[in-house]
Every structure is written in C-alpha cells, then in structure tokens.
C-alpha cells in the first residue's frame, strides 16, 4: 500500500493544486471541456434521435452508424484529427464530439421511440399535434432514457478526454503522460484515482437525475422495483 500512500500524499499536497498548471486548473478544464463536448454532441444528435424515435424511421441506419462509430478506435480518431488539424484544442474537441454522438443518439431514439404506442395514439386521438405529442408526451416519458444516453456520453468523454492529452488536449491526462515519461508513478497513480473519482461522481449525479425526472404518474408503488426501473432502460423500450 506504500505506493498509494505516496500517491495520496502527492494528490493532497496543496502546492500541486495551485497555479495554471495545478490540479485545480486542470481538473476544471477537464470538466468544462467534457461538458462542452457533450453539449456539442447533444445539439447535433438529440434532434435527430428524437425525430427517429418519433417517426420510427431510420432506426436501422442509426444503429449501424452508431455501432460503426463505436467500433472506431478512439486513439486512432484522435491522432488522425490531430495530424489533420494541428495541435490545437479543436482536434480533440471534434474527435470527442464524434465519439459522444452515438450514445446521445441511441438514448434519444430509444427513449422517444420506447414510449408506449398506445399512449401516443391516445394523445393523437385527443387532438394533440405532432409537436405537442413530442414535447408533452414523448419527451417527459422518454426523458430518463434520453438522460441515460447523455450519461453514457459523459462517461465516454471524460475517459477519452484523458487520452486526448496525448495529442495536446490538456486536462488531467497531461499529468499521466508526463508522469509516464518521467517515471513519477505516485503522481500517475494519484491523478488516475482522481479521474476515476471524477467519473464515478459524474455517473452518480446523472444516475440521480435519471431517477428524479421519472414523471410522477409513471412512478410505480414500492415493491415493484422491476417495473419502476424499466423506463430508464432502452432494452425495455425495444422489447
């Protein structure tokens, strides 16, 4: 456990947190950059996903495209874009947006498309326009799954943003690569644990949000936890 003691000592040394190259600044950059990437991906993918989910058309191509995107090795995409665009923050930003799109897209079409057709037909029979159906029926009912997609994207991006330091993306990954080069394992270990903690905290926050946005009427009585957890799972939506 000696390495861990050293790693914690490095991590909690106030001197390492200060300044523009300190942990504080890089942690903030890492978080802001990741959220900016997910925001970018959401702007692109959410409308498309909602459209696919609402109309039920184009699901197959979306599955294929997002599957292929996911099979694309992240490091390959990062280095190709870095060579093409130079060592700026733009290359990792674009690469990460591309990587975040499949999750947001899948969450959106699974969430919106998974709303019971009976419910949608009822809304239509009551005279709701298509826009009202999307905004007032499908959006609230599908929201947990849509947020699940964003949650998955956030995890993916926080992890890949670490890797992006390899092409000069900045953030916490910078410590890992410089530590690997100089053999400073306590620093590498300390920052690795910090990134893991960051990912788990963000994941927990999104998990909580997912629970909170389940509409009141959909929430089922205690004791039927299986049913209650269903709306947040795309599998149930597909089934």
């Amino acid at each position, binding site marked *: 456990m000696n390495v*861990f003691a050293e790693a914690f000592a490095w991590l909690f040394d106030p001197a390492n947190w200060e300044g523009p190259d300190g942990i504080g600044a890089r942690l903030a950059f890492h978080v802001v950059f990741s959220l900016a990437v997910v925001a970018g991906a959401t702007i692109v993918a959410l409308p498309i996903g909602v459209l696919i989910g609402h109309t039920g058309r184009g699901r197959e191509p979306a*599955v294929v495209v*997002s*599957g292929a995107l*996911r*099979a*694309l*090795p*992240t*490091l*390959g*995409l*990062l*280095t*190709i874009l*870095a*060579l*093409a665009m130079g060592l700026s923050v733009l290359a990792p930003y674009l690469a990460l947006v591309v990587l975040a799109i*499949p*999750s947001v897209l*899948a*969450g959106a079409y*699974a969430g919106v498309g998974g709303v019971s057709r009976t419910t949608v037909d009822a809304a239509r029979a009551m005279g709701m326009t298509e826009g009202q159906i999307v905004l007032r029926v499908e959006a609230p009912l599908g929201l*947990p*799954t849509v947020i*699940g*997609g964003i*949650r*998955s994207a956030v*995890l993916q991006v926080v*992890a890949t943003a*670490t*890797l992006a330091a*390899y*092409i000069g993306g900045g953030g916490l*990954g910078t410590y*890992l*690569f410089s530590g*690997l080069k100089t053999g400073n*394992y306590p620093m*590498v*270990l300390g*920052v*690795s*644990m910090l*990134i*893991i903690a960051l*990912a*788990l905290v963000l*994941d927990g926050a*999104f*998990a909580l949000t*997912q629970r909170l946005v389940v509409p009141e009427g959909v929430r089922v009585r205690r004791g039927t936890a299986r049913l209650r*957890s269903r709306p*947040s*799972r*795309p*599998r149930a939506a*597909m*089934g």
Partner: protein
Amino acid sequence: MNWVWSNLDRIGELVVVHLALSVPPVILAFVISVPIGWAAWRFRWSRGLLLSVCGILYAIPSLPLLLTLPGLVGVPLRSPANMILALALYGVALMVRTAADAFGDVDGDVRLASTAMGFSAWRRFTGVELPLAGPGLLAGLRVVIVSTVSLATISAVIGVQSLGSLFTDGFQRNIPAEIWSGVIATMLIAVALDALAVLGGRLLMPWARAPRRRRRGIVEQELAEVGA
C-alpha cells in the same frame, strides 16, 4: 498507400500481437461472466448488487484503470498482462448483464420439466439452461468482441505493442496512412472475430438464430450498462 505496401510485414506482425492481446480477455470475460450472470439470475438478491458493481466498473476510464491496476495487484505497468486484465474487467462488466438476461429468458416450464425428469442441478445447467441461453450469450459476446478489439489499441500509450502502435508511431512521424491502416486493420479484426463468433454460434446452436427481440446495437448495450 505506398506506406502500407512497404510496411505490410510490420502490420501483419502487429495484427498477430493485437489478436494475442484481445482474444484472451474476450475468452476470460465470457468464462467469468457466465457463472456470475447465472448467479445474478438465480439469486435475485444478488442481481442488484452484481449489476451495480458491473456498472461502476464500466464507468471507470480505461487509461486511469490501466495505470492503477499495477499498484493494486502488482502486474507490471508496461505488460500485456496488465492490458489483458483491464480488458477482461471491461468485458465482464459488459457481459454479466446480458448473461443474467439470457438465463432469465429461459422458459420456466422447460426448466421445471427438466427438473421433473430428474435432471440434477448441474445437468440442468449444462444440458438445458446453457444451450437455451446460448443465443443471448452470443449476442453479448459479440459486443464484447467489438469493444475489446477497439479498446486494445490504447495499449500503445502505455508502451505495450498492438495495432495502436501504428497510431502513436504515425502521429509522432506525421504519417496519416500509418494511422489509417491501423484503424482499418483494427476494424477488420473486429469484423472477422465477430463473424467467427457468429459462425461458432451456428455450429454449436444449429437450432437457433440470434433472438430478434433481444438484438441490440453495441451502443444500446452500453446504455443498458449505465442506465440500470
């Protein structure tokens, strides 16, 4: 293209290394997840716990995990063993849920019938539950194959050879063709291993095609992982 022709043997060499790095974790993940998935289905109290652990495991970023494992379990940092261990962990995290669902989908009446016919618990597992859960397990295995082959490339940044070495080398020497060939080779390996898994499934389970109802894209499976 010139770069590819003059470096074919180097690419071929790395393809072999990459296979050696990504096939063992896939097999390990499958062998480990099947009993865990079965337990998650069989003992309902354990399901939430096991699936939560898998969800948390899956949420851990890969590079920090690779750098933490040496401190935790003592594998050398720049070793294929470290890489294989990390990839196997992700594979298990992805596969346990599918395995639990696959066993849960086995028809309860068939299970009762086999018990009534005097099957022991072990024979019921090997002779009834496992074959019937087979198509679901295969679907999970295919997702693990694709994600493992792709993820194995990051070994290059910790100094373990794989097709990812073409990314780091191509980046440092400014040769886009080298990176492209790495990307394409990685995706071809994923497709080939996936086809092999499907073929194996046809041979072992000639009575069944993959169940339509459960067919999910890789992204949807990952969503299920975080969305539970």
